[in-house]
């Protein structure tokens, strides 16, 4: 049996056993999608469902997104098929008191970051169900790779332009936005039951996809995720109009790392950088 096949058997066995033993009542993973090159989320509640689980480079959706849904909250304990980006999102949700860590288990998948769709990706599955506390030490070494220059190549390219050209660049990109909010809906950390974009008393953000409304929406979306975005790229992959949303998210990530020395997704007990402060925070831009 090829290595991937063995890993897949192990993944399915872990999920089946978790459901059979009653350790969890729901396993969220991936099944084959309806078209080639797509994977669909799979919600396993019976042990037999586990036989439909798959994992490959098309499994890019961030499954942590489902943890905040009422149907999933109704389960006592839930297991997630979690590559690193999913686990980072769980950390964020625990940090923000949206998810009780004692009610989540991870079937941890170790694989490279899935930045785009790719069929072949080498992956292994960890032994046994893990709690978040058990998982975190196994991913701690990835913290150092969060701020490598390659990750910020697109940001650096935008930064190298003049202010005027940057405006043109984003005006052109934001103009494409159709306000479908796929970026918001697919984001595990955009969980507000009532989003500021949906409020109309007062109407802060134009609801139609005008230049003005698109600008306000995309700026506010990036700002609300500043210091919280765990850099999974789900928003950019979900965008039907191919807006470079990760340019904004990674710029925010870079600023937060440089100014406040913080990278999201590693410490569920850390204070969020934008809801705390230090007395000697940098303020050279304030007159």
């Amino acid at each position, binding site marked *: 049996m090829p290595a991937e096949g063995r890993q897949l058997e192990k993944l399915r066995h872990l999920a089946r056993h978790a459901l059979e033993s009653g350790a969890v009542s729901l396993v969220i993973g991936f099944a084959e999608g309806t078209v080639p090159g797509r994977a669909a989320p799979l919600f396993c509640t019976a042990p037999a469902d586990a036989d439909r689980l798959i994992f490959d480079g098309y499994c890019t959706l961030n499954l942590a997104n489902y943890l905040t849904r009422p149907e999933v909250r109704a389960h006592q304990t839930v297991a997630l098929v979690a590559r690193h980006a999913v686990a980072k999102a769980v950390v964020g949700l625990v940090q923000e008191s949206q998810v009780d860590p004692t009610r989540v288990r991870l079937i941890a998948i170790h694989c490279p970051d899935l930045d785009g769709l790719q069929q072949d990706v080498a992956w292994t599955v960890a032994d046994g169900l893990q709690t978040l506390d058990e998982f975190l030490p196994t991913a701690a070494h990835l913290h150092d790779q969060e701020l490598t220059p390659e990750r910020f190549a697109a940001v650096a390219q*935008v*930064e190298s332009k003049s*202010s*005027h*050209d*940057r*405006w*043109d*660049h*984003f*005006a052109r990109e934001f*103009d494409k936005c159709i306000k479908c909010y796929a970026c918001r809906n697919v984001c595990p950390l955009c969980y507000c039951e009532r989003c*500021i974009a949906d409020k109309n008393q007062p109407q*802060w*953000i*134009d609801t*139609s*996809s*005008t*230049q*003005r*409304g698109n*600008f*306000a929406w995309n*700026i*506010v979306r*990036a*700002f609300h995720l*500043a*210091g919280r975005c765990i850099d999974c790229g789900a928003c950019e992959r979900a965008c039907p109009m191919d807006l470079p949303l990760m340019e*904004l998210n990674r*710029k*925010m990530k870079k*600023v*937060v790392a440089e*100014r*406040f020395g913080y990278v999201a997704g590693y410490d569920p007990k850390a204070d969020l*950088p*934008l*809801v*705390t*402060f230090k*007395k000697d*925070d*940098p*303020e050279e*831009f*304030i*007159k």
Partner: protein
Amino acid sequence: MADFEPNITAFVCTWCTYAGADLAGTSRMKYPANVRLIRVPCTGRIDALFILKAFENGADAVLVSGCHPGDCHYTSGNLHARRRWTVFSELLDFVGIDSGRVTFSWISAAEGRKFADLITEVTAKVRALGPFDSYRKMSAAAGEQSNAR
């Protein structure tokens, strides 16, 4: 552009900068009449959307000002705000809004002089930058002609 009069919206906290502006007035200090003050309880109350909304409604520049660190009436509102501004000002700069369009400052109730000087300085800077047409000309209605520069 000689007759361009900048339209500056200032979000000021009621305890420090608003009182500082009051002092500038009662001390009969002169400063340009281009600024409109919006009084808020604390700089911590100032949402990033206030700044965008001001631009949408025709501001050429925005000033955000409150108590010096340590002086906040609510202990830490300005320190929380400082972190948000740090990130938000970088974001605005990143998408191509000139940093001269948004000014942040600490002005205490005793600093009427600083308030008058800052308004003078910001007004001069925005006069040089010109009207914020690139923001104002973004279409606000569906189907409106696209005319961003």
